[in-house]
């Protein structure tokens, strides 16, 4: 069984083979061939991950760490970085999530992307993403992690802008890449400091040295190791803030929903965005040495969880609600790992991967169904003039299949989608016995034990979570259809619904992996697990039920037409408008940073470059010409004559040197 560990690299190689086959030969095959290659590549990676998992389980717990060097990657002077893999419980957990959820989503996407002219390209990108994400989680050093880190960012860029004819989607893609790069800027500096501190970028030696040495000599100064590690962990966290969409860099993720829905599920919910949580957990040794950094991680996570949850309440786009929900849940995970609850954070990462992927895919099924409904009703409907709305918010675009105001009553038209969506929503809301209940409660139990203030913030966020999911359920599935499209919506085919069922199953049972009491997952990844806290569990369950009930009371049958204002507008007008506008954060960023950068660029390009720098050069040239006015006849404009003059001068100088020597 151990021999499998020597071949773990195949998990990365299979998707690469898949993407190369599809890239170079895919245009000769029909959709079916492309789909088979991509899904088989993903499935093969899943099989490898399962085998690696089994092989690790077969070893005694303290021997579940295997490293394999593929080849020496960078050797430049003292900088030596191998391309090497690290197989341990943490990496294999991530491998299983990535390939497991990834394979399900690959299959779903075969149905979702059916008929798209760039079907082939889509699956090339998807396989590239799998390979990149596996590099990220399997690398044995920070630089290999960083390759994966940036490559998943590239895949995110390519897939957000997949329908690039729409400039707003292309712009969303660029925004995602640039905002992530800002995070990566901090991350890079962290890498540089890691290297000068430890002389290596490999996890094992770094963690060992960090724990063992009390001081470190940097630039001739002897510094306490704790302080240096604090700076390192803060810098690394900047990267995590970008990748995992935390305050203040979360603004790219809602826009990332411009990508096809399977992408939102896989990359922008289940896997890539959790990379920051993974990185902090991977660096647990360092963060535990640096209370300042881990405290910051916890607070940023908690505040992000709350802020994003409040924004989600004010959204009408089905995917934007889920996007802000993802940001909020990532905040939960970040808060957990910041508090040292690595088990809870990773546990929530796993369960969230199931139920959030489920929610996105089910949302995709809703969108798909509505699009069908629009086609079906388009024949009977002309351009419909909507009555002016009393709402301070713009009315929905009647052709937007993602606007929940255009939905309603879909539970009858799409029963399977409805039931799976409900399971996902209740799991997210944290109702027992669904997976989200166990993992979220573990976070809350950890928080109450270590920092009650953070527990309070997270509990309020959890209340909002249940509320916005309740609101969403009523708006999408209950009441009467508010549009012709919703009335004619169709259930999706089995290639899409079977993945929904699989993920729904996962969302129900995934809590078992760290069931309170035996805590098998905690034993596996060898981090502490918070004991089950009945008070916390009861509080959060009751709050979730209250929130769902409140959503029911507020939204039941209140939106009858698409133009009806949101009921919350009447009770809390200012707050709702604020949440709708995401508290104006994005807009302020745009005004300060984006427009500021445009102004700076214009200033440097015109007055500075053309005026000062080039102006000086040309000014000197002009001055020379003017003072040489008397010698005008020599200025023939022929460069060869100038060159001749230069040569004469040179000869004269040489002669002078020779004579004087």
């Amino acid at each position: 069984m151990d021999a499998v560990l020597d071949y773990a690299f195949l998990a990365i190689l299979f998707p690469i083979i898949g993407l190369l086959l599809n890239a170079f030969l895919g245009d000769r095959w029909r959709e079916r061939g492309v789909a088979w290659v991509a899904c088989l590549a993903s499935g093969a990676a899943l099989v490898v991950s399962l085998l690696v998992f089994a092989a690790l389980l077969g070893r005694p717990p303290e021997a579940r760490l295997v490293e394999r060097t593929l080849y020496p990657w960078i050797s430049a002077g003292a900088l030596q970085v191998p391309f090497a893999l690290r197989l341990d419980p943490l990496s294999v957990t991530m491998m299983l999530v990535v390939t497991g959820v990834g394979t399900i989503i690959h299959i779903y996407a075969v149905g979702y992307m059916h008929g798209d002219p760039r079907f082939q390209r889509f699956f090339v990108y998807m396989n590239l993403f799998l390979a990149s994400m596996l590099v990220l989680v399997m690398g044995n050093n920070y630089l290999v992690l960083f390759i994966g880190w940036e490559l998943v960012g590239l895949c995110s860029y390519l897939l957000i802008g997949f329908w690039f004819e729409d400039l707003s989607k292309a712009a969303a893609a660029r925004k995602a890449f640039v905002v992530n790069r800002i995070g990566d800027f901090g991350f890079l500096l962290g890498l540089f400091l890691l290297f000068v501190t430890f002389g290596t970028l490999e996890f094992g030696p770094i963690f060992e040295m960090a724990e063992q040495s009390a001081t470190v000599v940097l630039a001739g100064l002897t510094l306490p190791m704790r302080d240096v590690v604090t700076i390192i962990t803060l810098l690394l966290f900047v990267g995590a803030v970008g990748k995992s969409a935390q305050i203040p860099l979360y603004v790219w993720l809602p826009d990332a929903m411009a990508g096809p829905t399977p992408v939102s599920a896989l990359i922008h919910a289940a896997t890539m965005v959790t990379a920051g949580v993974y990185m902090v957990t991977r660096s647990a040794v360092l963060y535990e040495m640096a209370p300042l950094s881990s405290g910051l991680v916890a607070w940023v996570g908690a505040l992000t969880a709350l802020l994003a949850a409040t924004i989600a309440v004010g959204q009408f786009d089905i995917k934007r609600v889920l996007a802000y929900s993802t940001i909020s849940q990532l905040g939960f995970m970040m808060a957990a790992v910041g508090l040292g609850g690595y088990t809870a954070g990773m546990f929530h990462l796993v369960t969230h991967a199931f139920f959030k992927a489920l929610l996105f895919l089910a949302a995709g099924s809703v969108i798909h169904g509505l699009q069908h409904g629009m086609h079906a009703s388009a024949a009977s409907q002309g351009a419909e003039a909507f009555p002016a709305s009393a709402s301070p918010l713009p009315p929905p675009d009647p052709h937007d299949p993602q606007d929940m105001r255009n939905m309603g009553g879909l539970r009858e038209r799409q029963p399977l989608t409805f039931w799976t969506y409900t399971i996902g929503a209740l799991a997210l809301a944290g109702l027992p016995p669904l997976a989200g209940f166990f993992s979220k409660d573990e976070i809350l139990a950890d928080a109450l034990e270590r920092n009650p203030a953070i527990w309070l913030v997270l509990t309020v966020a959890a209340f909002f979570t249940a509320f916005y999911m309740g609101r969403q359920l009523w708006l999408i599935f209950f009441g009467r259809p508010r549009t012709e499209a919703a009335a004619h919506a169709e259930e999706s085919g089995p290639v899409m619904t079977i993945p929904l069922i699989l993920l729904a199953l996962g969302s129900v049972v995934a809590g078992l992996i760290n069931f309170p009491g035996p805590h098998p997952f905690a034993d596996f990844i060898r981090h502490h697990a918070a004991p089950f806290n009945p008070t916390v569990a009861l509080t959060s369950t009751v709050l979730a039920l209250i929130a769902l009930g409140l959503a029911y009371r507020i939204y039941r049958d209140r939106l009858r037409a698409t133009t009806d204002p949101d009921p919350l507008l009447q009770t809390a007008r200012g707050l709702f408008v604020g949440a709708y506008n995401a508290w104006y954060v994005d807009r302020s960023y745009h005004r300060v940073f984006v427009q500021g950068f445009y102004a700076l660029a214009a200033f440097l390009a015109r007055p500075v470059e053309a005026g000062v720098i080039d102006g000086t050069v040309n000014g000197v040239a002009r001055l020379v010409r003017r003072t040489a006015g008397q010698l005008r006849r020599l200025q023939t404009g022929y460069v060869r004559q100038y060159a001749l003059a230069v040569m004469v001068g040179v000869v004269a100088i040489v002669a002078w040197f020779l004579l004087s020597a």
Partner: protein
Amino acid sequence: MGFPLLSLVTFLPLVGVLIILFLRREQEAAIRWVAFLTSALTFLVSLLLVVNFDRTEAGFQFVERAAWIPAWGIDYFVGLDGISLWLVLLTTLISAIAILSSFTAITERVKAYYLLMLLLQVAMVGVFVALDLFLFYVFWEFTLVPMFLLIGIWGGPRRVYAAVKFFLYTLVGSILMLLAILYLGLQTGSFALPDLMAQSGRWVGTAAELWLFLAFAVAFAIKVPLWPFHSWLPDAHVEAPTAGSVILAGILLKMGTYGFLRFNLPLFPQASRTMAPIVAGLAVVGILYGAVVSFAQDDVKKLVAFSSVSHLGFVMLGLFALNGIGIQGAVLQMVNHGLSTGALFLIVGILYERRHTRDMDRFGGLWALMPLYGTLTLIVVLSSLGLPGLNGFIGEFTILQGAFASEVLGWGYTALAAFGVVLAAIYLLTMFQRVFLGQSRDPANAELAHQPLRWHELAVLVPILVLIFWIGLHPNTFFGPMQRSVEAVVGFLGGSALAGW
């Protein structure tokens, strides 16, 4: 002295020159093919240099030395070490690519054009192999003439202004270098680099060292170009024909950075240490400034030109980190920039030949019209913005790590320079978006769908793309041979640290 392989690589293009001289002006196809085959053959022969290169040797290999002007102690003296090895290969490769890329773009005065291209190649290789300073200077200045003519004859509307500016600006810089070379030669009685290095005790630690450093530095800084001496570059690039830009960015700029590494660092080690914060400071300003100004451009070629200011800033930062990591990164980044920026100019040229404009506002949505072209461009763009897995990342990361670990530079340099990585993503992805994404903003673009890439357009890009991946995934192929030579330079720098001013 064995087989004169190095001289063969240097002067082989002259065979093509001879043949073309005997061809008639109208035999354009024959002229093109002779030029291309000669340069391609030169590239193949230059591969023998890699094959026969001894990577355990720090000093010069393939050395040839013969008296040239004995009265002045000037020799024909050439040799190769792990640093110049890659620059010679870059030159032979990029030259062949530039010639092939001109097949359809150059239709006037074909004979003169290819003659000049081949002569230019001789001079450029000469610069990288010359070990006699006087010989170096001759090759160095000789590159100016063909380039001046290439811009001045086959360039755009403001070609004369750009060509004269290019010529005079760089000439002014090199005159100081000539004075410094003459001073060194007269001081020591030899112009040979190894002799000068052996006798550097004469001036190291004196005021003269600083002046000599500056005299060389001005010539090289203008060539690089180091901010703020860069303003000739955008004009030259915008007006130059595609192949001219490819050579300018790919090779000629490297002569400046190579000069710093070959002459300034080992000959004036103490001055290098003293000046490192200033030079690295200008490099950092260049990285940020070039990137921001690049963003403000509408002409895509000008954007690429300013991006060179930014990229070459990284190379300079790596060199003046004055340690092995930084310098190895810098040498690799010279190659990377030659490949990536060369490819960007080729890509712009492909578009310009079809649409006769480079205004990004008149494109948009090109990826849908030319899928393969769009994908290839994206790969080059990603290489240029330093995506891990591709070549640019290895160079930039190594340089920044070297600068961070440097004894002569503070962490602030790296922190500011690393922000250039963010800016690169902004200006390059914005460029990609304006040209390739969204909807077409000019109906004339529709015809692009019927003009797929031609064989020679693909043929020039494919080798570059292969190298982009190769360097990104297995940089040790390139780091390996340069290791010892870079260590030797670092040895010179470190040795002087003990002596006071």
